[in-house]
Every structure is written in structure tokens, then in C-alpha cells.
């Protein structure tokens, strides 16, 4: 090497790279998820101590089955938020899809058409949302607020607020069991595990984190961010469609309204589960655990005889605490 001077610092000796211990890696990768899991366990223990009937099979079934659709919808929402976007129209979409599903079922279409046609509709609507966000550069909050109004207004105008009843029994898949377990519970677990593996170990999943973590860097590395954003919205529509199947088939009737603030509950599940509202981090395991936590809190409040209105307040506190923790973590690393 032609080096005439002496003031070139030598390449410093390489520090050894240690692989951190298993626990440390678990905490680093799944810190928030573990906290939510711990909260669920603590809650179960505490409420069961007060009222042992809480842990009865009946109640567990109602906790998991009645809320599994929220967890399933939150999988798609988590993916959307990981890319730095958001979807506030998902509650209204589930309402619309449920009505389409029920109408098809009552009209005598094959059951599988009644289940899966709405999934395609959800994907199509979200594909459109994704195109507006990605290629027309309209912020996702604006696009989905628009979609929220259109879907909600359209639904009430078309149905006039009537309920759909006389659903064929075979249609009501959420009331059925599979290997002795309620179908919604199985669906929630299977979808969460598959989505989690895919997000962690696929190139596509990895690119979603890059898009949300730093879109400019993602572009400069050759990741086609527009295509990824459209894809993530289509996925969101897919999971909203699957959530609709669980939602629409759990009762003998389909109301033309969904639970109030359903979209907020789904967004909160993602955020409390550790998905950064700023994008770039979080997992679908976290969002599912958080959805279970909400369901547990809701049920626990009944069992210890506290007004259900407290549920929203408790969840609101949780969300603020989580976002605060996220901000503090970011301040430390960046």
C-alpha cells in the first residue's frame, strides 16, 4: 500500500461478535408481546381468584370465539401499520362484507360462495385504497377516512338498517367445532402463526418492515415500495374478509351495524401488541395477544362486576402507555 505518511490510524482490531443469550434475544425481539402475555396471565389469575367461574370452559370459549375475528382483522392491520400506513375503514368494511355474505347465504348461493366472495370484495376495495395511497400519494388516513364514510353510509342506505335472519345452519361456521375446539379459535391461532412466520422469514415480510422503517432507504435499495403498499392493503382486505366470515357466522342474525369503534379496537390491538404507530416494527403475534387481552379485560370486568364502560378507559390507558414506551425506546436507539 502506497502510504507515505505515518498518521494513518491502523484498522482497529476486530471486537468479537457474541451471539446474545436466548432470553436477551427473546426480550429484544418480543419484549412487548411478552408484556401483553404476562398481563393476560396476571389477569386470569387475579380474576379467577375473585370469581372461579371465570376460568370455566364456557367462559373461555366465549372470550376466544367471540373476539377471534378482531384478532384476525388485526393481523392485516398490523401489516398495514408496519408499513407506516393505517386503515380506519376496516370496521365499516367488515360491516359491509358481513351484509354481502349474509345476503348471498339467504339468497341460496353455495355456502362457500357466501363465505369467500366477500373476501374477494374486501381485497378489491383495499386494492383500490392501496393504489390511492401508493401511486397517488394520498395519506392513508385520508383515503381510509373517505372509505369509512362511503362504506358506512352506503351500507345503511342500502340495507335501511334491517337485520338478515334465516341464515342456513351450515353457514354458521363460527358456531362449529373442529377437533373439539371452536372454529374461530383454531382460525385465529393458525392464521396468526402462519402470518407471523411469513412476516419474520419471508423476503416480502422483511420488505414491509423496511418500507415502514425508512421508505427512502427502501426505494434506494431497490424495494418497489408502491407495489408493497398496494400488496399490504390487499392483504389487509384478505384478513378483513376472513374476519368477516367469523363475525357474520357467530349469531343467527347479521346486523347491519358492527360494534361501535370496531376499527379503533382493531388498530389498538396492533399498537398495544407492539406494532409501532410510526411503522417499521412489531409482530402479528403481538396484535393477536393484545386482542386476547382486550377480550379478557372485557370479560373480567363483568366477572368482577365493573361497568363495561371501563373497558374503553382501560384500553385507552394501555394504548397511551404503549405508545409512550415506544417513543422512549426510539429516543434511546436513534
Amino acid at each position, binding site marked *: *500500500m*502506497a*502510504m*507515505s*505518511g*505515518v*498518521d*494513518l*490510524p491502523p*484498522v*482497529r482490531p*476486530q*471486537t468479537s*461478535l*457474541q*451471539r*446474545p443469550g436466548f432470553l436477551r*434475544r427473546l426480550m*429484544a425481539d418480543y419484549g412487548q408481546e411478552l408484556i401483553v402475555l404476562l398481563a393476560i396471565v396476571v389477569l386470569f389469575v387475579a380474576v379467577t381468584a375473585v370469581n372461579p367461574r371465570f376460568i370455566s370452559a364456557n367462559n373461555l370459549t366465549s372470550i376466544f370465539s367471540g373476539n377471534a375475528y378482531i384478532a384476525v382483522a388485526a393481523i392485516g392491520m398490523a401489516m398495514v401499520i408496519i408499513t407506516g400506513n393505517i386503515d380506519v375503514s376496516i370496521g365499516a368494511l367488515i360491516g359491509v362484507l358481513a351484509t354481502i355474505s349474509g345476503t348471498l347465504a339467504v339468497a341460496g348461493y353455495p355456502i362457500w360462495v357466501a363465505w369467500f366472495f366477500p373476501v374477494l370484495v374486501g381485497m378489491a376495495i383495499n386494492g383500490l385504497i392501496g393504489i390511492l395511497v401508493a401511486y397517488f400519494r394520498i395519506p392513508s388516513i385520508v383515503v381510509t377516512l373517505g372509505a369509512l364514510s362511503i362504506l358506512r353510509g352506503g351500507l345503511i342506505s342500502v340495507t335501511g338498517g334491517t337485520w338478515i335472519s334465516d341464515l342456513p345452519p351450515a353457514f354458521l361456521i363460527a358456531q362449529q367445532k373442529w377437533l373439539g375446539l371452536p372454529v374461530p379459535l383454531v382460525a385465529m391461532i393458525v392464521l396468526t402463526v402462519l402470518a407471523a412466520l*411469513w412476516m419474520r*422469514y*419471508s*423476503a*416480502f415480510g*422483511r*420488505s414491509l*418492515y*423496511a418500507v415502514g*422503517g*425508512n421508505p*427512502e*432507504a*427502501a*426505494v*434506494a*435499495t*431497490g*424495494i*418497489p415500495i408502491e407495489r408493497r403498499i398496494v400488496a399490504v392493503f390487499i392483504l389487509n382486505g384478505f384478513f378483513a374478509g376472513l374476519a368477516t366470515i367469523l363475525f357474520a357466522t357467530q349469531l343467527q342474525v347479521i346486523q347491519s351495524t358492527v360494534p361501535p369503534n370496531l376499527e379503533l379496537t382493531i388498530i389498538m390491538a396492533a399498537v398495544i401488541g407492539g406494532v409501532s404507530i410510526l411503522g*417499521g*416494527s412489531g409482530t402479528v403475534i403481538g396484535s393477536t395477544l393484545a386482542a386476547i387481552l382486550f377480550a379478557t379485560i372485557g370479560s373480567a370486568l363483568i366477572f368482577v362486576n365493573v361497568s363495561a364502560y371501563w373497558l374503553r378507559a382501560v384500553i385507552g390507558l394501555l394504548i397511551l402507555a404503549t405508545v409512550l414506551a415506544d417513543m422512549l425506546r*426510539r429516543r434511546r*436507539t*436513534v
Partner: protein
Amino acid sequence: MSADTPFVTLSGVSKAFAGVKVLKDVSFDVRAGEVHALLGENGAGKSTLIKILSGLYTPDGGTITVDGRQMKLTSPRDATAAGIATVYQELLLFPELSVAENIFLGHYPRTSSGAIDWSAVRSRARDLLDQLDTRELDVDTKVLTLSVAQRQRVEIAKALSRDAKILIMDEPTASLVEADVQRLMGIVRQLRERGVGIVYVSHRLPEIFALADRVTVLRDGAHVATRDIGEVDERQLVSLMVGRPIDSLFPKVEAAIGDTVLQVDGLNRGRQVRDISFSLRKGEILGIAGLVGSGRTELALTLFGMTPATSGTVVLDGKPVAIRSPRQARDLGIAYVPEDRGLQGLVKPMAIRKNISMATIDRLSSGIFIRAAQEARRATEAVKRLGVRCRSIGQPVGELSGGNQQKVVIAKWLETSPKVLILDEPTRGVDVGAKAEIHTIMGELVRQGVAILMISSELPEVLGMSDRVLVMAGGRIMEELSREEATPERVGAAMTAHKEAA
């Protein structure tokens, strides 16, 4: 107060960021009614010094004396109250507000009842602009409709509205056209007549000789010299700025230079890339010198497909290519290490491993899943080869120092086995040790036959590392110099030639 008594004095000021000293025991003063030029290479500490003066940074050591009293400037508000105002390069105005509103924002004149006295706002804004010979500007116009030069005058009026005794101007002519430069220089002279002390930061030596009374040169965070402008000539200033025998710091590796890899002819894109032609050979380091705004980075972005060319041809390895996207450039074997690694180079919350594999993730996958073991092995190898200092490859990149972050960006692109590596300011904001290591890595790469296109604002780096130097100004290549021909004087002259010719 006599004319020679400084209004503001910094003595023995130091500042460090994350253990890296960016200012070391610097003393600097400004008198009322003088233009004091502040000169130095990028990274010399000029902007840190300015930010200390304007209250954005608090120094770690040293004292600040304003008008005979020792003070602590812990916020921009303190600095404003002490009579120090700053006009930054990126102007900080509110585009939706009017000129008058912007000038008096935060200290509106009030009526006796406490309401904002709009007629006073407008008439005083009018006065201030008239004093700056800016009669053509309507005080009710929204700022968003103004040109850069006009906005700059609004900023100056804003400073005067607060009775600034000292006005700091950070590269005020960097984005002005020639006629506006002349007008600005007139305004600066006029302010000096009125007794305002001006700190004038600029790379452009001709402007400094035309305006300044005194000049202070910083280098590597240290004070090198303060001279009356009459005591120095251009050559002396450059040698003060550069200050060391250039060859001693930059290890130029003699690599065998091979066939042409990249041939660019008549490339155009907007106003910043005009009629660019050059060739680049295997094993060669081609340096690009030029001032900020000369089109250096824009050329890189065009070659890399971020802002595709509107005309011209690019031939890569003998095959003509039309590069429309970074993805395509990447797949063709072009890599770009960006100017701002935080903005375009890294996903900071992500692990080192994931950042390194980001450009090659498709190749690392079989079916839909990433081969995790292979990914980890490659990242570990890269970290060792480039000497990235980290706890583990799972550590978030944001936790690393600037130099180590830069090595991660380089590692990411080396994974793609590029034929052409574009390095945009490869050592900006990197400490001296890591800088030398990055230069060593560059030497290794050219020995392996990679062709490097290196953009740098740091003249010694360009001169020390390059086999050939292209000098850009106004979006064009002004001169192409061999290693032997490329002296600081010649490169410096070509960098500023454009402005003088205009």
C-alpha cells in the same frame, strides 16, 4: 465601544457529540460593523460554531461574552435576546403566512389593549424592506410565492426587526443566481455600514475577498488562523483550509486499471445534470469535485435510476442500458452509497444483519422464506471484513457510530457484487479512524476490479484518492483532470469558474 472591541467573543469553546470532538478549544469574535468570514472544509466545525452562537448547541467548555458580559446561550431565544440572529441556508419561513406576518412572528407589535397592531406590523415591515432596498416586495404577499432570494431578504428583515447586532449568514449565496448574489452583497455592505457585525460562511473565495474584513479558518474542529483579509491571498487561504500534505493522509492504492465499465454520453436530467459525458474503467477511482448544488449528487441519482435521465446514453459493460429505477440499477450491478446515510442508506431501527441483506434479500430466499443461516453468515463475514464495531449482528444500526453505520451501508452494497460503486460523500460525519478504514476498503475494492465513482466535498479526499477528477459546476462537467494535473488550485478554480463566467 471602540470599533475594534468585539461585540461577541467565544473563547476556548469545545463541543463533542457521542465522544467525537467536533470543536476543540476554538476562539472567535465578531466586531460591530465588520464582515467576518468563516472558512473551512466540510466537517471543519463551521456549522457547529454557528449553532453555538445561535443558541442551538450549548458548548461543553469555554465562555461566550456578548457586549462585555459573559453569557450562557442555552436556546435560540437567548441568542435572539442577546442580539444575535441567524439566516440559515434552508430558510425557516412559514410559506402560508404573509411577508409582514413572517417578519414579526413571535413579537408582533401590540395595541394598548393587547391585540396585534396589524397596521404597525405592515408599516414597520414596509420600512424594514425599504431599508434593504426591497421596495418591489409587497408585505401582504404570501411567502410561498417568493423566490429564494426574496425569502432570504425577508429573513434578513426578520433579523433586523429584532434589532440584531450580529447577523450570521450560513452559505447565503449557495442557491442564488448571479444577479441575486450581487444584490445580496450590496445588502451585506449596507448592514455593515449600519454597524451590524456579520458572520459570513461561504466556500466561495471570490465573495470572501470582495466582502470580508477578517477571515477565520477552521480545520478539523480547531482554530487555524484569523487574519485581516488584506494579509492573505487565495492560495494562502486554501492551504490554511487544507493544511496538510495531502498525500500523507490518503492511502492511494495502485490498482491495475482495466477496460471501460461505464460509458456515459450526453446525459441530461433537469437543470442539474446537463450534457454529462465520461467514462469509468475497472479498478479506477474517479473523483467528482464541485460545490454544493453543482449537480454532483443529482448526477449520481440519475445514474442510479432515482431520477432517470431524460436524454443521453449509458453503456455498461459494452451494452447500452436505460436505467429507470434503483431496482434496475442494482440488478445491473450499480450500487449507490448515498450522501445521507440516515435518510437513504439505512433502516435505523433494524438489525445490522437485516440492513446488510436488504439489497440481496431476493437472492437469499429459497421459495418464500429467507435462508436465515446463510443470511447471518454473510452478515457476520461482512461485519468482520469491514471492521464494523458492534455487539452483535442483531444490534439495531441506529445504535452504531457514524463511521460504523457507513460501513454497514457499504457492506449492504458490496453484497450485490457491484461493478460500479457510487460513493456520495463516503466519509462525511465519520471520525478520523473510520475514515481511513473506509479509504482502505476503497483501495481493496479497486484492487478487486470494482470501478468507483466518488463524490466528495472534501478536496483533499478527492485529490488524494482519485485516479482522475471531474470538476462539476452548474450541472456540467467543467474540467477533467488527471491525478497529476489535479492540484487544489486548479480544481478550486474550475469549481467556481461557472459562477464567475455567468
